[in-house]
């Protein structure tokens, strides 16, 4: 799922200054699960901003709203009036949602309320960790199901590098060395011999190197 973190309120305040009617707009899927950008967080943020507006005597009207997902046209139907009312929409979705609004409503200003971080998992309540960078060509079958591209600081495909110490990465002692994890898992699976298989030079064209990506469903299907 996509993980984001709400921007500091000072940054958001600065961003919305100068607009008259601001809609704080939640996205109730990925970023709601990480308690950062759902409709509930939109309600909280709107309330905080309103109080700030009152305190600073700023003439900004602030409302909150939200939909299920800000990356699909159909969901916007229920928020039509809210968006109509606003001159700026502070989207609490990931970067996808913000851009979707910008593209969908040419007359509205779309503002990002979140810093989009990564695609991750929920390791424990309140602990989300990065696990995939969408490189477009999965090699997990070669690496014991642990992705060195997203989880190794150097994205090394034939690791570990010399910075791996006691199973931890040199850049952060808290961070597991992805290659250590791969080795441990290979060993646990009784497949340590596979370690000696060299992973060849990677085709990065399916990642950002190939430009913005697109999936056209019917073509894929045919």
């Amino acid at each position: 799922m996509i993980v984001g973190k709400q921007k500091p309120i000072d940054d958001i305040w600065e961003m919305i200054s100068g607009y008259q009617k601001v809609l704080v707009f939640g996205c109730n899927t990925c970023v709601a699960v990480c308690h950062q950008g759902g409709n509930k967080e939109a309600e909280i943020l709107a309330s905080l901003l309103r109080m700030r507006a009152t305190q600073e005597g700023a003439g900004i009207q602030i409302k909150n709203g939200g939909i299920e997902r800000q990356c699909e046209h159909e969901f916007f139907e229920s928020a039509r009036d809210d968006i109509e009312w606003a001159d700026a929409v502070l989207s609490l979705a990931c970067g996808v949602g913000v851009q979707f609004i910008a593209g969908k409503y040419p007359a509205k200003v779309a503002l990002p309320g979140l810093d989009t971080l990564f695609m991750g998992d929920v390791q424990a309540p309140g602990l989300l960790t990065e696990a995939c960078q969408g490189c477009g060509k999965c090699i997990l079958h070669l690496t014991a199901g642990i992705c060195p591209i997203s989880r190794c600081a150097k994205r090394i495909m034939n690791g570990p590098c010399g910075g791996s110490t006691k199973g931890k990465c040199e850049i952060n002692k808290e961070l597991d060395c992805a290659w250590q994890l791969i080795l441990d898992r290979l060993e646990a699976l009784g497949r340590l011999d596979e370690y000696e298989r060299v992973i060849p030079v990677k085709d990065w064209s399916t990642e950002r190197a190939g430009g913005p990506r697109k999936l056209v469903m019917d073509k894929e299907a045919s």
Partner: protein
Amino acid sequence: MSQAVQEANAMEAHTVEAPRPSPENWEPLILAFACHYCAFGAADLAGVMRLSYSPNVSVIRLPCTGKLDHSYILRAFERGVDGVFVAG
């Protein structure tokens, strides 16, 4: 207190005004949220013991303070209470 509440509080910390002198004879208005099982009972007991405190606080009973929602606190502040007391 849930992590979200703590974060909300942390967010509020950014917006705290510089302390201002309060007007003379000013009394804050306070809203309390109390757990039915402990703090609400404690407030009852305070009555039985005839303790005395200022009447500027009223209690909303919750089944547990875990039931507390951000919106309760924020709505109270937005509408002008000066303090929210969560007890449980």
